[in-house]
């Protein structure tokens, strides 16, 4: 157990104690004050790792879990996972602080909330630090589950349940696809360790399973990171409490897909497929998200689409940057490595400004009772601090100086411009689209950022349309957004501190070969002359401002797209259809008649046993070892057949019962012939008692002919049942043949032949029953006792209904 493992384990362990703390302290102290210690402890632990990691070292610790399968808790810290770890715990601490003021300790089920939150935190830390892909997968699904629980936190609301189900279905689908991709990867490389796979990158790319494995893994990453067309779950996930939206659905969990893509870039990067799929999906998501964000009337909906859009942007940067691995090293590679730097840098920036914005929206919601843009307005004077934070966050999101979003946005523009000059992967055909899509999407980003801040805080104050009288939030609630907003500005002025401490190690983890060659030189500056990216930013601001001012004139375009053709409609329809089909299928075969179910069971018996016999090719008919038959035995057999058919065809119960008795006695005769005296004796006794019992009930049970007037002539004829019955009989016969014709193991009977020495008994069968398998027999007697009691109770039982 190392420090690193303990840090990942703490959230899980502490989660167990949260309900207890809640029970005993809730009246005096908000449970969040206990929980906040956990992320702070881990954050501090990770902070002190920074000097070590930034000097190029890594940490690797392992604990065996299932060593025989090569599945161990291999934890690995490098620059990339460290950034995620810091984000998870840092934002986590701020979010918990915020939640202490956001969620009332009187009204909310806080113990559930914090248990889920800690579960998520632990899972997310485990995810980013795991080197073993199967362990990573386990943590990956655990984040999906905790996200599901948190979205459905207000489970009494229908929309929450809908959103939770949607996110669950989509992310788990992706997770399972990813698992199969991982299994393919491990089949190719014969290892579960990601770092060992790096070394085998060329083997993987040359393998037949390369493309399926890559696509399946990307499905996992795209569903988790809400990439188009899987993005539809994220807006519905906004039903979660706002601290959760800020934490899971903007700052951390949705970035797990980004993490995975970045983590696996050394394996898949440098191939045209990886480059194209990720860049194109990312760019489409970027445009789709920003375009749809503009039409939202719910502030959280707007932020959700904006998150989708920003995730798309980071994703496309990772795609573009993967080209660096194609070029190996040299100046050309360094150009694309800058895209990776931009991706990681923007991811950090996005967590800061989007976290702040979510918290601001939460405050607005909390203090006014609504998030509807049409009802809000003029809050600037009422909530000046909230307004300032919102302004900083929005301008950073729009990519304006002096905020950190400007830096990473410029780097993004630089990358999409540079990529058009690339002459591999058929870039000359579609490459020109990259900067165009990026620029258009940025214009929409600018517009929705302006909507967010100006429609809410400027304009006319409409107190009559708000549910509460608006006022500034309590200071505790403002601390977290203020910290994040300060970071937004600090990062703008001192970007190279972050670059040296965090970005360089992270990029070197994604592009290991470049660092060795020393070509990677990350230096971020706000001013780099009148370059293409600066003109693009100016263009965004000018066109964005014009379009924002003319918003009413052109928002009609959103109504042009038919509602029933959206991906959401597709999701809803397919869900409904599958439910309907499932229900009608179930109704078809679940008839409620036991005999139908028995027919299924028999059919499956035939298919299973018969099928196994055929598939394993074990049908043998070997007549050579048969014991001789004499005329007496033939006579018994014939009599048994007659008795059995009599039972089947009997018109009266008495005939049937007596024939059954005959059959039983004939069986006991066979036991005699087959050298089984004990069986014969038992069978005789049991058969006598059973027949007597049948005859006792004889008086009370209805006659056969009474049951159905139509079938007075004995058993009704049903062709299907006959076919099933004959099939069962045939399978059993073939099975018996094969059993006689095959001998796989030596019989163990000779062991029991020493029964006199072992158990002091001369009757071997008796020795087996009462000695070798004595407990078994005792339990059998126990069963008999239960049956006797049941029989007695059944006879004595009188239903209350009858007594009335």
């Amino acid at each position, binding site marked *: 157990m190392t420090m690193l493992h303990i840090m990942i384990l703490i959230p899980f362990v502490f989660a167990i104690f949260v309900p207890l703390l809640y029970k005993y302290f809730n009246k005096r102290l908000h449970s969040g004050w206990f929980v906040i210690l956990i992320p702070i402890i881990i954050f501090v632990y990770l902070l002190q790792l920074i000097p070590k990691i930034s000097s190029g070292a890594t940490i690797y610790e392992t604990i065996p879990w299932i060593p025989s399968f090569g599945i161990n808790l291999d934890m690995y810290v490098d620059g990339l996972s460290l950034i995620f770890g810091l984000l998870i715990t840092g934002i986590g601490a701020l979010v918990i602080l915020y939640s202490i003021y956001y969620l009332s300790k009187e009204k909310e089920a806080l113990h559930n909330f914090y248990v889920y939150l800690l579960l998520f935190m632990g899972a997310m830390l485990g995810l980013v630090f795991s080197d073993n892909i199967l362990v990573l997968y386990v943590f990956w699904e655990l984040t999906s589950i905790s996200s599901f629980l948190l979205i459905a936190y207000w489970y009494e609301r229908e929309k929450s349940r809908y959103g939770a189900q949607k996110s669950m279905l989509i992310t788990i689908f992706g997770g399972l696809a990813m698992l199969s991709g991982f299994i393919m990867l491990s089949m190719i490389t014969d290892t579960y360790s990601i770092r060992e796979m790096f070394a085998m990158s060329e083997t993987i790319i040359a393998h037949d399973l390369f493309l399926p494995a890559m696509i399946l893994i990307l499905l996992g990453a795209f569903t988790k990171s809400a990439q188009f067309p899987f993005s539809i779950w994220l807006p519905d996930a906004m039903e979660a409490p706002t601290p959760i939206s800020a934490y899971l659905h903007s700052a951390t969990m949705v970035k797990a897909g980004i993490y995975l893509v970045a983590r696996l870039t050394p394996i898949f990067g440098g191939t045209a497929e990886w480059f194209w799929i990720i860049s194109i999906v990312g760019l489409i998501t970027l445009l789709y998200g920003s375009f749809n964000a503009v039409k939202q009337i719910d502030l959280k909906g707007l932020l959700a689409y904006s998150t989708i859009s920003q995730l798309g942007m980071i994703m496309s940067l990772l795609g573009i940057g993967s080209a660096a691995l194609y070029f190996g090293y040299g100046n050309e590679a360094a150009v694309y490595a800058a895209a990776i730097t931009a991706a990681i840098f923007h991811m950090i920036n996005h967590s800061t400004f989007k976290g702040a914005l979510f918290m601001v929206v939460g405050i607005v919601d909390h203090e006014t009772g609504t998030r509807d843009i049409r009802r809000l307005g003029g809050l600037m004077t009422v909530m000046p601090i909230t307004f300032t934070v919102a302004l900083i966050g929005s301008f950073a999101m729009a990519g304006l100086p002096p905020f950190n979003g400007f830096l990473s946005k410029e780097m993004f523009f630089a990358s999409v411009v540079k990529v058009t000059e690339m002459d591999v992967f058929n870039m000359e055909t579609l490459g020109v689209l990259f900067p165009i899509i990026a620029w258009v999407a940025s214009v929409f980003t600018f517009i929705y950022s302006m909507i967010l801040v100006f429609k809410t805080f400027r304009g006319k104050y409409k107190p009559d349309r708000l549910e509460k009288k608006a006022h500034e939030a309590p200071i505790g609630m403002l601390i977290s957004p203020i910290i994040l907003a300060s970071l937004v500005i600090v990062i703008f002025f001192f970007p190279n501190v972050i670059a040296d401490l965090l970005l360089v190690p992270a990029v070197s983890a994604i592009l290991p070969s470049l660092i060795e060659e020393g070509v990677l030189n990350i230096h971020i500056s706000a001013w780099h002359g009148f370059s293409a990216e600066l003109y693009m930013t100016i263009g965004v601001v000018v066109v964005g401002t014009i379009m924002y001012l003319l918003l009413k004139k052109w928002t009609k375009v959103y109504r042009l797209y038919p509602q029933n053709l959206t991906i959401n409609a597709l999701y809803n329809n397919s869900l409904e259809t599958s439910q309907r089909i499932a229900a009608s299928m179930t109704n078809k075969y679940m008839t409620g008649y036991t005999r139908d179910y028995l027919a299924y069971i028999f059919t499956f018996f035939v298919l299973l046993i018969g099928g196994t016999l055929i598939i394993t090719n074990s049908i043998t008919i070997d007549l050579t070892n048969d014991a001789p038959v004499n005329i007496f035995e033939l006579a018994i057999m014939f009599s048994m057949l007659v008795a059995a058919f009599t039972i089947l065809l009997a018109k009266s119960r008495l005939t049937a019962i007596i024939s059954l008795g005959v059959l039983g006695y004939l069986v006991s005769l066979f036991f005699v012939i087959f050298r089984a005296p004990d069986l014969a004796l*038992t069978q005789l006794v049991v058969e006598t008692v059973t027949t007597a019992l049948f005859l006792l009930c004889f008086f009370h049970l209805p006659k056969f002919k009474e049951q159905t007037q139509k079938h007075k002539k004995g058993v009704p004829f049903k062709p299907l049942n006959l076919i099933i019955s004959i099939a069962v009989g045939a399978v059993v016969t073939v099975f018996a043949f094969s059993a006689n014709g095959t001998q796989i193991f030596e019989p163990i009977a000779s062991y029991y032949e020493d029964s006199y020495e072992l158990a002091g008994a001369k009757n071997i069968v008796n020795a087996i029953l009462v000695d070798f398998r004595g407990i078994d027999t005792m339990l059998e007697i126990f069963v008999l006792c239960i049956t006797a009691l*049941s029989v007695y109770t059944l006879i004595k039982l009188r239903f209350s209904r009858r007594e009335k």
Partner: protein
Amino acid sequence: METLMSILIGVLFTIGTYLILTKSLIRIILGTSIISHGVHLLILTMGGLKSGGPPLLGIDTTTFTDALPQALILTAIVINFATTALFLVLSYRAYQELGTDNTAEMRGDENE
């Protein structure tokens, strides 16, 4: 002998299965009894028939029939007896309460 027994067992299973698939409770019970006879004979046949003397030490023989299937069957006979008895009483009581032994009629429709 084994061949003939296998066929006989198959026939017993066929008849038993067909009876179980009918609607009458008493036929279902008869069917289960026939199938259990079939099972007993099947286990015995699979162990090999007449391959030695009865599994009793002290009698004048050196080879014994396999005793293990016999022990299994003995257990099966007793358990089968118990279930048959329970079944019978159950159907007797069901008939008393409901006035039918037809499983299709027993099924009420109020809770459908």
